[in-house]
């Protein structure tokens, strides 16, 4: 299983699906890359058209995704096979797939330079990789089953949601060492993107709540959510937190100031991850069981559309 798999990944489908058009047309509008785990593909949603425009076939069971700071490369993990796939976001083709070992799950790209961080679910570690060569340049031990990762560029901290340890590891990026393990609740899984200067939010799947971690002193306060909260996002402007409650089949909006739910909408099929548009108007929620992405109008929390994607959509990333 060590040989490169790029040879297996001839992008047969994407070429056939490319829209024919005048050469002068701008290449792509902003899009959403949806990682479809069972379907072994990335479904690409054109956000201006609100439809799935292309599918990029990748090796078996993709899980996590990150986009390089320049937007040109998407990185996709394959935990069951220890693989990392690189995708050229302009041509929408797989560049290569590399064996990096372990159970690579979450991946984040450092906005400062060409560095990736990958959580190793079974290895209880976070690996640092050179973004160009994909060579491992460091490893830091964390708690058990690290699921989500978030990077705070301002403070130069990396956070790991150590699911089976019920804690979040705080990693000093410069020294690449773990400086704290913060108990947050049961089975922390996913973070918001971490752009809020004051706090970081993480969803605790088993305790059914959201932990807000103060970035300065690591103090934790907890907000009740629905059953089995997975993905979450802080809405720009309001600072409210949108969370996908998988077992409740809902997406709810929480106000961290009043500590109350301000609204909730029922979705089908195991809502999983959440991405909010940069203007704070719309949210995209992957519906794992229904092979769809729901588009939600945040003003009034109404489902505006449902976009069919590949099988088993999980994580998502916007690509400029």
């Amino acid at each position, binding site marked *: 299983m060590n040989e490169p798999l790029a040879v297996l990944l001839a992008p047969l489908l994407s070429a056939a699906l490319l829209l024919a058009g005048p050469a002068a047309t701008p290449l792509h509008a902003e899009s959403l890359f949806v990682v479809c*785990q069972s379907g072994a593909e990335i479904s690409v949603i054109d956000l201006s058209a609100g439809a799935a425009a292309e599918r990029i076939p990748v090796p078996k*069971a993709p*899980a996590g995704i990150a986009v390089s700071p320049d937007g040109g490369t998407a990185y996709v993990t394959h*935990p069951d096979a220890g693989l990392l796939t690189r995708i050229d976001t302009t041509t929408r083709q797989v560049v290569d797939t590399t064996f990096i070992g372990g159970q690579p*799950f979450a991946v984040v790209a450092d906005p400062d330079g060409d560095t990736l961080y990958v959580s190793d679910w079974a290895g209880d570690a976070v690996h640092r990789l050179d973004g160009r060569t994909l060579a491992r340049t460091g490893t830091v031990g964390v708690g058990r089953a690290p699921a989500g990762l978030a990077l705070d560029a301002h403070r130069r901290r990396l956070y790991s949601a150590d699911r*089976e340890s019920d804690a979040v590891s705080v990693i000093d990026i410069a020294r690449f060492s773990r400086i704290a393990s913060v108990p947050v609740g049961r*089975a922390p899984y996913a973070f918001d993107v971490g752009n809020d200067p004051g706090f970081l939010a993480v969803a605790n799947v088993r305790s059914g709540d959201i932990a807000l971690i103060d970035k300065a002193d690591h103090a934790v306060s907890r907000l009740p959510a629905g059953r089995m909260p997975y993905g979450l996002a802080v809405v720009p402007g309001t600072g409210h937190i949108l969370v996908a409650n998988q*077992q409740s089949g809902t997406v709810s909006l929480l106000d961290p100031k009043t500590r109350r739910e301000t609204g909730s909408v029922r979705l089908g099929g*195991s809502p999983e991850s959440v991405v909010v548009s940069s203007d704070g108007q719309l949210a995209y929620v992957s519906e794992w*069981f229904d092979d769809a992405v729901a588009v939600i109008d945040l003003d009034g929390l109404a489902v505006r559309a449902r976009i069919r994607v590949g099988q088993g959509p999980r994580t998502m990333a916007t690509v400029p």
Partner: protein
Amino acid sequence: MTSHLPTRRVAAALLAGLVFGLLAATPGVAHGPTPQKAEARTQIAAPADAVWKVVGAFGGIGSWHPMVKSVVATGGDAAGAERVLTLEKGELTDGLDDYDAAGRSLSYRLSKENVEALPVSFYTATLTVSDAGAGRSEVIWTARFYRGDTSNFPPDELNDEAAIAAMTGFFETGLKGLKAKVEGK
């Protein structure tokens, strides 16, 4: 090599002990990174309320599921209730998460795994009864689950395919039993 080789039987016992020790040492392996799905549905020639009366009793699964030998239930039909199912090869414990009598839907999760009884390490499941018109109803049973061995090199009996086959088989057999019971056949 002066010591005697252990007999095959002793070696097997040692191996079994070792394997058990490894499993026992990792109690948190309730989850892996790759969930799978199962879905089964059936149409029943009875009104939805009549079907719900049977399947809506969380602790009553033993009365209609052919693979469930016996059930010990606590907590009734409220969130937090538990049921211990005895299957042919051992016990499983389910915890009730959500109970929606008006919507005729209940959701539960595996709270104590037993890969001998069912080769999955965790599941969440939802069972819903809906009105299919003309006095008929439809039952849909879905689950999200993880293979019995969540490492990257599971043995065949604990891999994704085994988990999907077992979970789907459990649902399909159950719905056949439910249909037979409700329709009185």
